[in-house]
């Protein structure tokens, strides 16, 4: 069951190179950015964008659903050529991987029960419970700026909403688009609302510079190709149309 690419690599020296499709991974558990539809097909903003980039840059792409925990190790190890999964660009990540140009500046928001009367500030949320998805920019942000709050961390995007509706958390912070799509639009989210200011990378470095496609550091050629494709989509209005489709309120 062990696939030895060694023999394959040796065979390539003799034979002319065959272009294999690029392996692009996403963690499809974050609607509306990436999720699976009823038929198991990948759908969402990032998926549509990646497909458009591949088309514009004439790249043969294979987008696969992967587990989040394995994506970054998989990229570093060469298992995947690129990752598109609402990855925020941070200094720390730049040290280990390359990024395409930033394609989106996400807005982060808190969400709480309507009329909860919470003041969104470190003092206002002192002693309150904040739910976040672990290992995200939101996690880094509240960990740093809300030391007097109880922070509960979950490894999925949906678990914090269960904590909110169950009354075990007072407030949750996530991508605004994800809160609207995955929670406020659903039945269980009807008693909840967005609270506090719209936060972006300008408010805190923890939110990163923006969202981009991660690429293996050694593959500078692919970075250029993806950026080329992205630039085309910006020019012909495809990117704007996608933003309208997913983020217009």
């Amino acid at each position: 069951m062990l696939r030895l690419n060694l023999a394959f690599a040796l065979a390539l020296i003799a034979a002319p190179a065959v272009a294999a499709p690029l392996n692009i991974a996403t963690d499809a558990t974050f609607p509306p950015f990436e999720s699976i539809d009823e038929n198991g097909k990948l759908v969402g903003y990032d998926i549509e964008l990646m497909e458009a980039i591949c088309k514009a840059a004439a790249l043969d792409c294979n987008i696969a659903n992967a587990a989040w925990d394995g994506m970054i190790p998989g990229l570093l190890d060469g298992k995947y050529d690129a990752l598109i999964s609402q990855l925020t660009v941070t200094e720390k990540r730049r040290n280990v991987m390359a990024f395409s140009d930033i394609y989106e500046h996400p807005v982060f928001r808190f969400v709480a029960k309507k009329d909860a009367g919470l003041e969104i500030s470190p003092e206002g949320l002192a002693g309150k419970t904040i739910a976040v998805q672990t290992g995200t920019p939101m996690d880094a942000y509240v960990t740093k700026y809300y030391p007097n709050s109880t922070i509960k961390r979950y490894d999925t995007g949906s678990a914090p909403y269960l904590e909110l509706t169950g009354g075990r958390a007072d407030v949750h912070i996530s991508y605004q688009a994800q809160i609207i799509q995955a929670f406020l639009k659903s039945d269980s989210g009807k008693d909840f609302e967005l609270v506090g200011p719209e936060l972006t990378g300008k408010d805190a470095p923890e939110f990163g510079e923006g969202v981009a496609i991660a690429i293996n550091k050694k593959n500078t050629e692919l970075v250029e190709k993806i950026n080329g494709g992205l630039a085309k989509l910006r020019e012909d209005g495809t990117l704007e149309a996608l933003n309208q489709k997913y983020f217009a309120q």
Partner: protein
Amino acid sequence: MFFNYALTILAAGGLTLVLAVGALVLASIMGLALAFAKLSRRPWLRRLAQAYTFIIRGIPDLVLILLAFYSLPALLNQLIAAVGINGRVEFPPFGAGMVTLGVIFSAYMTETFKSGLMNIPRGQLEAAHAFGIHPVRIFWRITLPQLAQLALPGFTNNWLVLVKATALVSLIGLQDVMFRAKGAAEATGQPFTYYLLAGGFYLAVTLVSTGGLMVLARRLEKTIHAGRT
């Protein structure tokens, strides 16, 4: 919508089953070999088998799976690069998952088979040797049928735990029942619905296999008694 998501989850059941059966075959073969090693007359072989089961049983399954999938190939690739060969070793999730589960459960199978082997009356084997029956024939005609009966309850137990342990491989990206259930749960925001469905799948598999193995146990009992009279 529920129906279609449910179908994708259950369709992944095939993969989960193939994975479980593959791991079971591997675990059984390795377990049998290790059980013989543990009962061997050679002390070094006994100690080796002892150390193997001790280490494997002492490390959580999850840790072993992550080590096998991420750390081992990375280590091998570093070695390959260090020797200056241009190539890469990579384990596909299915293979890595199956081998790791096989290795983990081989340790449990070893114990099951060992106690089974110890309960086969020694006199029978001595008599067979005295008649000059070939050891391979002794194994097939005398040891294995009795071992099958003696080890079956423990074997059934291991199989049930193994089926449920396959859910761990969703963490290395294998699109099994658990992975699909998580995808559906996150896409719809209805975790209970889809995790319950996944739970129902595992329950159904364990129910069916418990029934099947009970029938097998009864049949084994009959054939062995029939052989004795």
